[in-house]
């Protein structure tokens, strides 16, 4: 058993170290500097090993501490709601009880479907029983140790009785074992088993019930008292003993492991293909869709018409929602002075918030993804399609299309904001009306250009439609982060609006120039 654990731990560790090194090797500059032999180089192995150990400690201790912290914070919030600090201990124990039940229904540890287990059991044909039991004991030991420290602190700080603290430390072990025992019995009876869904269709309603009871009862000053929690946990321990007996007798570890691992692998493969399948599915089968144009205009028009479902339909929905929101806001401002003042102040200082809004509603990313999966992925293998003049011609057509598509909601938002400023009390600086109208449109054009030029300059996909460019992911992540940060910044509309207009014009010019210069070389399927 000890040897099986040593081998499985070593395998999991190697998997994690190599994953870390792989992630490091995907970073933009390091990718070119680091050699392919990185996985065999002792220095890098040590760095990976240190990071791997840090992750092990982080996931074992820090995440549990974070869980305890979250429980404490929720307890404080509920204590404030019911305005009774003396209920702190009981509310905490109440939350812990329901939290543990939810956790048990999400992961039993025994039937983990981690990739490293797949390699050990499926490919290396390890003894599944020894693998399962030794890893189960290891995971539960970590959990028990962390909870022991947590409840020791709780006993001395919140005055939770010692007997309940001891029960709480062992309760997760027994309740998980009870569920594992149930799963093993179910498997023997030929039923479907799942690590993260032990009770089939009942699991989700049970989780929701636990969430409701977990939060609602303490919110009504009705937490399960210590004795009640103790009785439930003791019942869990009794069930757990039955579970442990079943675990000891169970002899179909190989079969159940292969069953759950294959199922998980199928789900992984399916989710990997989901984007591709879904994007292919949205092609309209309506054969009446035609085009009277020629060449690339013909191709582009048919693409847009056959992809209305993911291109124009969301745009129209967003436009309608934006229109409705601004109509309501304008009416509310016209009839309520306080609301009008709030909107007026927001419009004069919180325009940066709309950077995130315009980012979120921009269709550029979905457009470029559909372009690649349903069009460029195939046509980029034909030499005529890769000719510089053809690449640039199609880029121009596509840019025009996506700019128009995104401008519609941007225009409605701009008009809506300018109208709202007027209705909510106006401004001493009339240029603000113009800025409120133009800034969302400038942002919209900026994001349209940004998404399409990044796609053309970095073309991140390989022939399996997987994103293979670290730089692309980094830029997309940075774009999100910048927009998110701006959400919380207040800048007068006059300054922010002018800055956005200026930046957008300069950015679009540079981006288009770069595409015209570089795209014939960069717009290729990644090897």
């Amino acid at each position, binding site marked *: 058993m000890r040897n099986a654990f040593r081998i499985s731990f070593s395998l999991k560790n190697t998997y994690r170290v190599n994953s870390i090194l792989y992630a490091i090797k995907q970073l933009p500059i390091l990718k070119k500097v680091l*050699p*392919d032999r990185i996985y065999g180089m002792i220095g890098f192995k040590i760095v990976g090993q240190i990071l791997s150990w840090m992750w092990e400690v982080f996931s074992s201790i820090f995440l549990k501490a974070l869980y305890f912290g979250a429980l404490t914070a929720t307890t404080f919030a509920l204590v404030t709601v019911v305005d009774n600090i003396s209920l702190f201990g009981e509310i905490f124990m109440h939350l812990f009880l329901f939290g543990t039940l939810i956790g048990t229904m999400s992961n039993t540890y025994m039937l983990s479907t981690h990739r490293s287990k797949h390699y050990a059991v499926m490919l290396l044909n390890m003894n599944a029983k020894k693998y399962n039991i030794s890893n189960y004991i290891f995971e539960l030991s970590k959990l028990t140790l962390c909870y022991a420290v947590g409840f020791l602190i709780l006993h001395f700080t919140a005055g939770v009785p010692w007997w309940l603290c001891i029960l709480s430390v062992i309760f997760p072990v027994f309740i998980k074992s009870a569920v594992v025992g149930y799963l093993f019995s179910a498997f023997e009876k030929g039923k479907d088993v799942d690590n993260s869904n032990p009770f089939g269709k009942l699991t989700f309603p049970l989780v929701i019930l636990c969430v409701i009871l977990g939060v609602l009862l303490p919110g009504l000053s009705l937490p399960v008292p210590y004795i009640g929690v103790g009785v439930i946990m003791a019942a869990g321990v009794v069930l757990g003993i039955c579970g442990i007996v079943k675990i000891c007798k169970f002899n179909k570890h190989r079969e159940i492991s292969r069953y759950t691992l294959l199922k998980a692998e199928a789900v992984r493969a399916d989710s990997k293909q989901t984007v591709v399948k879904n994007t*292919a599915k949205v*092609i309209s*089968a309506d*054969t009446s869709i035609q085009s009277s144009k*020629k*060449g*690339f205009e*013909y*191709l582009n028009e*048919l*693409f847009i018409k*056959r*992809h209305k479902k993911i291109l124009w339909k969301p745009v129209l929905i967003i436009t309608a929602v934006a229109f409705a929101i601004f109509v309501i806001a304008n009416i509310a401002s016209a009839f309520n002075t306080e609301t009008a003042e709030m909107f007026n102040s927001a419009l004069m200082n919180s325009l940066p918030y709309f950077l995130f809004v315009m980012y979120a509603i921009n269709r550029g990313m979905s457009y470029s993804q559909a372009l690649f999966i*349903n*069009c460029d*992925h*195939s*046509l980029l*293998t*034909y*030499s*005529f399609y*890769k*000719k510089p003049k*053809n690449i640039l011609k199609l880029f121009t057509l596509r840019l025009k299309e996506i700019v128009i598509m995104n401008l519609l909601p941007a225009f409605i938002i701009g008009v809506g904001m300018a109208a709202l400023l007027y209705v909510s009390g106006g401004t001493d600086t009339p240029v603000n009306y113009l800025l409120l109208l133009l800034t969302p449109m400038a942002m919209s054009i900026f994001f349209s250009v940004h998404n399409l030029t990044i796609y053309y300059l970095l073309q991140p996909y390989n*022939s399996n439609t997987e994103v293979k460019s670290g730089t692309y992911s980094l830029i997309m992540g940075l774009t999100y982060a910048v927009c998110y940060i701006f959400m919380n910044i207040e800048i007068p509309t006059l300054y922010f609006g002018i800055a956005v207009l200026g930046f957008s014009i300069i950015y679009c010019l540079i981006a288009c120039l770069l595409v015209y210069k570089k795209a014939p070389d960069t717009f*290729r*399927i990644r*090897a």
Partner: protein
Amino acid sequence: MKLKIENLSKSFNKKEVLKNVSFTFESGKIYGLLGRNGAGKTTLFNCLNKDMRFDTGSVYIEESSSSRPVAADDIGYVLSTPTVPEFLTGREFLKFFLDIHQKKLKDVKSTDEYFDFMSIMPEDRDKLLKDYSHGMKNKMQMLINIIAEPDILLLDEPLTSLDVVVAEEMKELLRNIKDGRIIIFSTHIMDLALDLCDEIVLLHNGELELVDKENLGSVEFKEKIIAALREDYQ
């Protein structure tokens, strides 16, 4: 017409996949390119098709003692997994392609004539390409590459996953169109290469080597090829 490769090298990090490759392909012949997994067949095709930059060397076309660089129109590249724009019907794809090449193509036929030539049935011509079978997509991809009349046709294991009927149709087609052009056919299946190709070229140890077919029985010839390819790992 000849396709000349001179001192072509391509490395991935420190692994040299193509080592100073020099070779001359002549028109009117089908070349069978044989090599073990990872030998660099697809890399060679990607370099010739300019999908990948090579490190050193040159590739050019020699015609009546003058030479010129290889242009995009000179090459047709058919992949083992057929890639066609799935949102178009077969007819629309063909129309789009003919529109783009209308100035270049001589003696343009009607779309139906092209479909007849490729044995694509009338009921399939107006279906979306996403609903085509693997073999039909492959035919469509081949048709587009043939209409363009490229001087050089690169075929990366195109018959591997086709059913016997379509595979035979494709072989016949390749034999019919080989005059005046160079066809380089990469495959793992030696019997297919021996059956279809006029010349056998081995890609091993990062180099191209023409195998002399003369004066050898087929068993001896196969053994000679396998012995040569084994050297890769010795």
